[in-house]
């Protein structure tokens, strides 16, 4: 029949490619896997390699399908605009770097299975769908696709109690958050009669009157669900436990890409369908922003485990990023995007350093194990020091510029109190970042760490440290592309 209404597949080409690749690799792994431990290891390496290729191809596909104007397909469920493209590029880069660093850790812990790569690809696929969601159904599909894969890789270290606990905790709380999100969606659907972002925006924009209370309640539920995904206070409790329990490369992955995708989703949901309700949700965003910054700063002070510390640090950073959303302008969104990109670069670098912390084949997770690292491994110590100073926001490192754009937007939007709380909590946060520098540089040297630890991670450290160092020379490309991406959300 000629009139079968096939949706336009071109905008979704990268996702389709990635889905096919993930399934293909699953087949490859499942059917070539016999011959015991050695074969499993070989297959896992091959699949990881091919997974990297798949991410690279997807990245190229994203660049190829990019068009100047937004493309909508699948009955309006899927949108490909500048914002989605920007997010997808960095999601893919973050996923690829995490995968690149993971293999040697997994092999060391005898958990190198090809499923890891497949799950990571599927989670990435979910994130690509999330940032392209243009309808609550599309949003939920992407989000769950991502979350289910993440629950499994959090517990990927099957024989480790902590890892299992992390996976289970993440699953239970994540399912609760998804439930809240769904409930909110159903309320919104009930009061507006649609799940499409564009249609909701039209309905709410109608007459300038206050929207039905049901929509507002629904909105609050949706925000609660999304706040869980970005681990903003007060929905952050899972973060330290999951970060601590999950295998370190998985934590590295958790702390960058899902966070970026969820922030992207949050921006789109708040600004597109609910853009006209700005006055309603701004105060909520301000509250979770302040709470995240303050809790992130104070709770991290007493941590001794570096992965838990990074968890609180990520909570704090989300708080800063949300300042940009609270402003609700194009400058604000641009600032969020710049901040998040710089954050994932610093964070990947910091986790690459953590992956290098290995002594006699054992991973080290305590901050005190870093003692005297500057003497035993000066290069790694310098890298980690650069990331820490950058996270404090000391110029001329990249982290400063992330904060600069955020606070510029906040001042411009008149959110003075928020800005003041923000800078002051950054002073508190400086204490625990500096503590790591102190342990590495001021304390007496402990035993040296293994020289051959984290071969790939060292490349990541080098690359990200250079980016953080020289960002101030060429800030133009990131700033202008973030600005273009932000414009897409404001229909201009």
């Amino acid at each position: 029949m000629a009139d079968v209404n096939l949706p336009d597949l071109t905008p979704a080409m990268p996702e389709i490619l990635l889905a096919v690749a993930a399934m293909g690799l699953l087949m490859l792994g499942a059917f070539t896997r016999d011959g015991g431990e050695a074969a499993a290891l070989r297959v896992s390496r091959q699949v990881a390699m091919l997974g990297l290729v798949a991410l690279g191809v997807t990245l190229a596909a994203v660049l190829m399908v990019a068009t100047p104007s937004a493309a909508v397909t699948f009955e309006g469920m899927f949108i490909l605009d500048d914002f989605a493209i920007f997010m997808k590029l960095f999601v893919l880069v973050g996923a690829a770097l995490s995968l690149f660093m993971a293999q040697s850790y997994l092999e060391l812990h005898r958990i190198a299975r090809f499923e890891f790569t497949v799950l990571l690809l599927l989670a990435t696929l979910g994130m690509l769908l999330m940032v392209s969601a243009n309808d609550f159904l599309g949003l939920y599909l992407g989000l769950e696709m991502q979350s289910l894969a993440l629950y499994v890789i959090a517990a990927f270290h099957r024989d480790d109690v902590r890892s299992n606990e992390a996976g289970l905790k993440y699953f239970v709380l994540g399912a609760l958050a998804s439930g809240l999100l769904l409930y909110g969606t159903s309320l919104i659907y009930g009061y507006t009669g649609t799940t499409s972002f564009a249609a909701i925006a039209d309905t709410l924009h109608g007459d300038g009157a206050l929207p039905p209370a049901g929509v507002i309640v629904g909105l609050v539920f949706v925000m609660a669900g999304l706040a869980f995904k970005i681990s903003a206070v007060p929905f952050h409790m899972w973060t330290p436990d999951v970060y601590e329990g999950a295998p370190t490369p998985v934590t590295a992955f958790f702390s960058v890409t899902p966070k970026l995708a969820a922030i992207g989703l949050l921006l789109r949901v708040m600004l597109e369908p609910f853009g006209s309700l700005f006055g309603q949700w701004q105060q909520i965003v301000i509250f979770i922003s302040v709470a995240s910054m303050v809790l992130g700063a104070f709770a991290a002070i007493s941590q001794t485990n570096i992965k838990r510390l990074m968890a609180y640090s990520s909570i704090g950073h989300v708080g800063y990023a949300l300042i940009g959303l609270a402003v609700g302008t194009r400058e604000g969104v641009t600032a969020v995007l710049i901040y998040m990109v710089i954050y994932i670069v610093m964070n990947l670098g910091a986790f690459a350093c953590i992956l290098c912390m290995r002594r006699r084949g054992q991973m080290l997770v305590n901050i005190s194990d870093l003692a005297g690292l500057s003497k035993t491994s000066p290069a790694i110590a310098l890298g980690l020091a650069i990331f820490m100073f950058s996270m404090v926001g000391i110029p001329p490192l990249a982290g400063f510029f992330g904060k600069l754009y955020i606070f510029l937007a906040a001042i411009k939007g008149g959110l003075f109190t928020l800005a003041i709380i923000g800078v002051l909590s950054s002073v508190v946060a400086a204490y625990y970042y500096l503590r790591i520098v102190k342990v590495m540089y001021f304390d007496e040297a402990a035993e040296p760490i293994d020289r051959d630890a984290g071969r790939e991670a060292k490349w990541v450290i080098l690359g990200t440290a250079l980016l953080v160092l020289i960002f101030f020379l060429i800030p133009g490309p990131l700033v202008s592309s973030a600005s273009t991406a932000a414009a897409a959300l404001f229909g201009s």
Partner: protein
Amino acid sequence: MRDLPILTLVTFLPLVGVAFILSVRGDPLMVARNARNVALLASVTTFLVSLGLWFGFDPAGADFQFVEKAAWMPALGLSYHMGVDGISVLFVLLSTVLIPVCILASWESITVRVKEYMIAFLVMETMLVGTFCALDLFLFYVFFEGVLIPMFLIIGVWGGPRRVYSAFKFFLFTLAGSVLMLLALLMMYLEAGTADIPTLMTHDFRPELQIWLWLALFAAFAVKLPMWPVHTWLPDAHVEAPTAGSVILAGVLLKYGGYGFLRFSLPMLPDASVMFTPLVYSMSVIAVIYTSLVALAQDDMKKLIAYSSVAHMAYVTVGAFSMNVHGIEGSLLQMLSHGIVSAALFLIVGVVYDRIHSRDIATYGGLVHRMPLYAAVFMLFMLASVGLPGTSGFIGEFLVLVGAFQANSWVALLTAIGMILGAAYMLYLYRRVIFGMLTKDALKKITDLTPREIAVFAPLVVLVVWMGVYPDSFLSIMHASVEQLVDRLATAQADVAAFPLALR
């Protein structure tokens, strides 16, 4: 000569040295020796290039000279804009003079991680010079704040027993002040629509906005200067820092505060400055008297000099806020003089510390018998710190008092009491360390200054005497810029007198 980007050269030449030091590999002893040589060479070259500023500067012009401008972040309208005027040019030279002195002073006393130490000092030189040259708000902030990283490491890695506490205190105090300044700079940028410092210096901000901006800037500069009661980080940082760290801290870093007042607070926010003058006066007078009394009670030489720094820097604020030519020139000269004298005093403590490893005043006594040359150098700088005519300290303090007397005679009177107390604690220190009988066994074999140490002190001695005997070579450079500033302030004073701020 004019086309040469001399400020960029002076700012970034030290980084070339860093690149060389980083490329040195091999035997640790060789690396250390090479690092020292390269660092000295790089900093001396930087100094020689910076002399181009001294000879090329046109004292008749009040505007910025040696200006360089290039786009940096065009989306925000930020630029790489460098330039110096009569207020900043001397600070650039002060920085380039002191860094080679510091490197030479650390030649033998630093034995661990020499390579990193030299890198930290050269990076710091870039940040220091950049701060005084930057003519873009955010470029300034990058340099102003960037200096925290090398200084934190210098105190923390090469410092004394309580170095960790001191390094954190230093870092967090200054960070807290400067992040508030960052918000003020952002507000100024948004309000005026430009981040260009020369333009902002003629921009009139709304008076009610000025109050908030002034307070935020004050938070940063008062911590840096440091003013009572936020000075407590300074004695800790000085005591624990290695000698050269204290030298840079006292010599240049404290000047950030005074420079900030003269570059930002006074010209950009004149109305608020006039309004807050009583506050600044009171804090300064308290600082002069209180910290002088505290200095009198110290047992630790470095701590004593650190407290004397707080007192001397209070003269700077008194002079700056007297808002007349004498006062402001005096405060500038006081900063330069203090930069050299306090640097020299820390070096003097460093000399005996290297030999005896104690900073306790009670450990010493009668040093004049074994170290006559040392005693002479010490005396010169001690008297310069007291403000003896013929030394740089006198000119600075005298001009400040002349300026203060025109503005408010009570402030002048109370500040002058500080001079008397200053003489008391410095002479008391000198008597206990240098005079008396040489009875302590540890001191019986102490040796006088080595040729290297003489080389360290020689340029400082020359500068102190030069500034004291013929200050005009320095005053004439700053004069035109200071006049311009005073004119702007006079208008504001008239405004504020005519309409109390609260009524507008």
